[in-house]
């Protein structure tokens, strides 16, 4: 898969590792991941900002039909998470489906998010877990 090319994995590492998004200097809105122009007002005057690492669940899904490389983690809980300044969709880890409710508080946590087989690059990034 293309997403496992080393240059692709490398150039997206900062926003995967540190939850770096962009704030528009024109309209003030924040988006993630960083884009070249504001998705709301089209301004190109953007600055990188670190997003809050804590948010709450707006909605979630418990996914049973997962990739074979996610079978160890099945069912995978996916959350639409409100970070206040913007939202993010991410896997929720360290939780059982019954632990997650709409409104649950979550925090970002650094985990393996994929790998290119047994010999290719490992992709690290942020997932979310119940606040500790």
């Amino acid at each position: 898969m293309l997403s496992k090319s080393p240059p692709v994995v490398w150039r997206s590492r900062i926003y995967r590792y540190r939850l770096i998004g962009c704030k528009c200097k024109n309209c003030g809105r924040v988006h993630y991941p960083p884009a070249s122009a504001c998705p709301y007002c089209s301004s190109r005057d953007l600055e990188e900002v670190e997003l809050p690492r804590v948010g709450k669940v707006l909605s979630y899904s418990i996914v049973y039909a997962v990739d074979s490389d996610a079978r160890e983690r099945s069912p995978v809980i996916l959350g639409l998470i409100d970070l206040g300044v913007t939202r993010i969709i991410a896997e929720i880890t360290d939780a059982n489906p019954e632990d997650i409710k709409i409104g649950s508080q979550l925090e970002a946590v650094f985990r393996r998010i994929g790998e290119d087989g047994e010999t290719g690059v490992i992709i690290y990034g942020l997932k979310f877990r119940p606040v500790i």
Partner: protein
Amino acid sequence: MCAARPESSVGIRGWGVYIPRFRISMVEIAREWGWSDYQWKALGMVERSVAGPDEDSTTMGVEASINALKRANINPSDIGAVFFGSESKPYAVKPSATIIAEVLGITPLTMASDLEFACRAASEGLRASIGLIASGMVKYALVVGSDTSQANPGDVLEFTASSGAATLILGGSSGSAAYFEGSFSYITDTPDFWRREGSPYPRHGEGFTGEPAYFKHIVEAVRGLMDSLGLKPSDFNYAVFHQPNGRFPLKVGEMLGFKAEQIKLGLVTPIIGNTYNGSALIGLARVLDYAKPGERILVAPFGSGAGSDAYSLIVTDSIDESRERAPTVDYYIKNKVMITYSQYSKFRRLLRVIRE
């Protein structure tokens, strides 16, 4: 006592640990492989931690380092050296230290490397960091000990080999939570435990890991430290030794003249297992979670192959302010979910799976 020892200008600015929440009990492992209960009772074990399916020594190292950074309360870019000690590196070639440094915002103006010396690689990083800071070459150094220890399925090692990480951030002694009084290393070529290139599991010499390896090296390092500082066992409030099981630390303490009460607080292996590079350092972190200003701590990591370092630390008045900033060792000990042997096999990829 020698006032000009370089160690005394260096202290621990922050400490942090991470222990994954999954635990497997000794009973579960024994039942799976038909061991008698005597086998694990002789090791002084109850249960041990298991890293989750999306965790490895790098992710655990990040977690521990985030906790240490919270306690140190410093600018990450002021860290000039990152050492990652592990014997379960996710990449055989490609450093984990760079990943951790990038995640924490320490890059790019820093040293960073992975060290390998079985369970004492991180301790080597610690001693090297003392030198780097005392010499003025770097302001702060971050040392991670992290392992998702492997064990050949069915081997006795499976009772103890667990997962966890500890990070220490070192800096100048002023403002540190505890400063070093002295350090002492003792190294020989002893093949008591090893893993050959390409082999999935380590092998060991059973009893040979004991007397000539663990006991000999720790005893020599600790005696060397105490002699050089003019200290005796009763001068220490706490003693933390590398802890491959629940018994060895008590025995080596006894050989050196330490009492069980000095060792107990820092002895976590019976309930979380041997976290290898995290082992003695998680024990130290637990002591720092409770220690009072003025108290003296002995720490003696050991690594097969073989070598041991002994450190003496004095707790300062600053310790209380940083303590609350991150979760304690006890938090992680209590935060647990028991799993079965089959879950453990799946999480640690002991099963042969063909991916689509």
